[in-house]
């Protein structure tokens, strides 16, 4: 199969999945027992006020009509209006998203780098004390709630040692502006990138200092799965003939381990990065709450407190679409990277 037809097939496969996902969210928010509007008012509003509220949000129509409205809305990038302030949910989500993306990217980098490094060490010292210690550490990371780890890091590194700020994304008022070329303005919303675009190194360092603890907590909790995966794929590849053949040619051990064994063990790791993206977002929600990080997770948790059900639904849909998109991208990247599929 050519790369192109593979990509087309994969994209087509995503469509029914997305439809199912959207339907699932609709079922949960509209069909499950519990009327979102009544829940929002906690049964303490006059019936007329409730009716008017329903009309404003389009929740007075029949369920099938609401379903169609909802689907066409999602297609147009409209996730409805917030019950809290009637502003478009999609807009609020887009403004909160870069913060989550930045946290997720750094968390993933830390998880993967740490996981690969420890996994390679573990596989190379197979069945020795070091191997057992690393594996036990990996299993222990599965059992730590990320928000608890976050609080411990906060307690030690910011409250006790004052090495890092304890929460927030940057010192208020010093948000980086990005690149400004006359009328052309470029800002990604990722503070580490924007500060560099602005050419302000001290802001960059500051952004990193704020980013470090939350992304480290996230990365540490997620690295266990990468340790295990790297270890098992390395144990398999290190046994393969071409690795022995590479050693027989007297190549440096570092070359053999990293460019022969790890390079070939990398595809499953890449797939896992895609699969872990969902876990990463779940972790980000909790981490953002711990570190008062103004991203999507924080937005979702705030809206739960306000009983803003349209916003909750919008955020859930957005998370779902995001995960589907990432897994699509990872699959295509996988096909592109494996020369045997690329043919």
């Amino acid at each position: 199969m050519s790369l192109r037809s593979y990509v087309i097939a994969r994209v087509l496969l995503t469509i029914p999945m997305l439809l199912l996902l959207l339907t699932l969210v609709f079922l949960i928010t509209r069909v499950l027992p519990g009327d979102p509007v009544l829940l929002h008012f906690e049964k303490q509003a006059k019936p007329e006020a409730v009716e008017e509220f329903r009309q404003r949000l389009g929740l007075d129509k029949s369920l099938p009509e609401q379903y169609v409205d909802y689907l066409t809305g999602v297609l147009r990038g409209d996730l409805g209006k917030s019950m809290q302030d009637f502003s478009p949910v999609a807009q609020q989500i887009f403004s909160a998203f870069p913060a989550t993306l930045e946290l997720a990217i750094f968390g993933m980098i830390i998880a993967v780098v740490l996981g690969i490094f420890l996994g390679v060490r573990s596989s190379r010292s197979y069945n020795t004390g070091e191997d057992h210690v690393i594996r036990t550490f990996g299993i222990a990371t599965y059992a730590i709630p990320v928000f608890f780890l976050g609080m411990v890091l906060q307690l030690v590194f910011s409250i006790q040692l004052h090495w890092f700020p304890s929460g927030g994304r940057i010192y208020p008022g010093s948000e980086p502006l990005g690149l400004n070329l006359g009328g052309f303005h470029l800002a990604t919303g990722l503070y580490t990138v924007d500060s560099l675009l602005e050419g302000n190194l001290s802001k960059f360092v500051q952004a990193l200092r704020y980013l470090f603890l939350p992304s480290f907590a996230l990365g540490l909790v997620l690295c266990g799965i990468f340790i295990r995966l790297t270890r098992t794929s390395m144990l398999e590849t290190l046994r393969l003939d071409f690795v022995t053949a590479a050693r027989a040619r007297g190549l440096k051990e570092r070359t053999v381990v990293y460019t022969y064994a790890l390079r070939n063990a990398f595809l499953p790791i890449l797939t896992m990065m895609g699969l872990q993206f969902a876990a990463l977002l779940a972790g980000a929600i909790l981490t953002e709450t711990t570190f008062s990080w103004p991203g999507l997770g924080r937005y979702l948790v705030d809206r739960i407190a306000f009983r803003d059900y349209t916003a909750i639904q919008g955020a859930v849909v957005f998370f779902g679409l995001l995960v589907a998109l990432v897994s699509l991208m990872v699959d295509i990247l996988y096909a592109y990277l494996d020369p045997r599929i690329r043919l």
Partner: protein
Amino acid sequence: MPLLEINSLTVDYPTRVGTVRAVDRVSISVEKGQTLGIVGESGCGKSTLGLAVIRLVPSPGIMTEGSIMIDGTDIMRLSNNEVRELRGKVGFIFQDPMTSLNPVKRIGDHFVEFIRTHEKEVSRQEALEKTGKILESLGILRERTTDYPHQFSGGMRQRVMIGLGLALNPKLLIADEPTTSLDVIVEAQILELMNKLKKDYDLTLILITHNIGIVAEMSDLIAVMYAGRVVEFGPTEQIFENPLHPYTKGLLESAPNILHPERSMHPIPGSPPDLISPPPGCKFHPRCPHAFEPCPLREPFLVMKERRFVACHLYD
């Protein structure tokens, strides 16, 4: 001085259920320019012996005893870095060409990386130039250096492996079952090629195989291995004309004989012993048609007999 001299080499694999002695006090010497064939059934330790020569015994194997001298250097005494250098000077060809190349590396990059690891002053361009020449001499188009291994057939890949083995003009080439996984026609081509290269490069060759027919064609010396031990070692013609060890006789009778096709084939009854708990005395005695009283009692020594070495109580 022999180019390769192995003295009483022993390799053990410790396992949970006991120690497996894969190579048992093996002594062999090969002069420069000679070809040695190492024959035996699978699991007799011949591959481990081959890997031991470049100190690449697979984990958890350990060389517990003996020495290996290449060109007068004791390779047991080398540092890890020196062993890497040694591996550049000893070519090694593996059994399965389909799995011996890195699937995500281009053919040319295998060569460039190998050459530049050992000859740091060579530029990438020069290395590629050299690669092209080597591949052409093996009947592969120069343009194919940018291809990936999966774009090559098995026979072509084995040519590539041979090319890699020869890329740094080694003094010694070890080929471990180089044609076993190839079909018969390709096998013949590869053997012919190796015979030609042996002359062109003035190679000392160690050919490890279970196929005694190949050894007859290619080698000057034969070492027959059984259960980790060398049971017979000597010049090829003599061993073929007059095999002394019953196991050697069995091997010859179990292979089709081109000179005497009318002779029927007689496979050796039984199977090689379990090396965790090998039989006492001579390890071949349970399968040996000539076994008598001393055989299960003590192991025969390797003794000189009719201008060769043999380990059998019949010749004590």
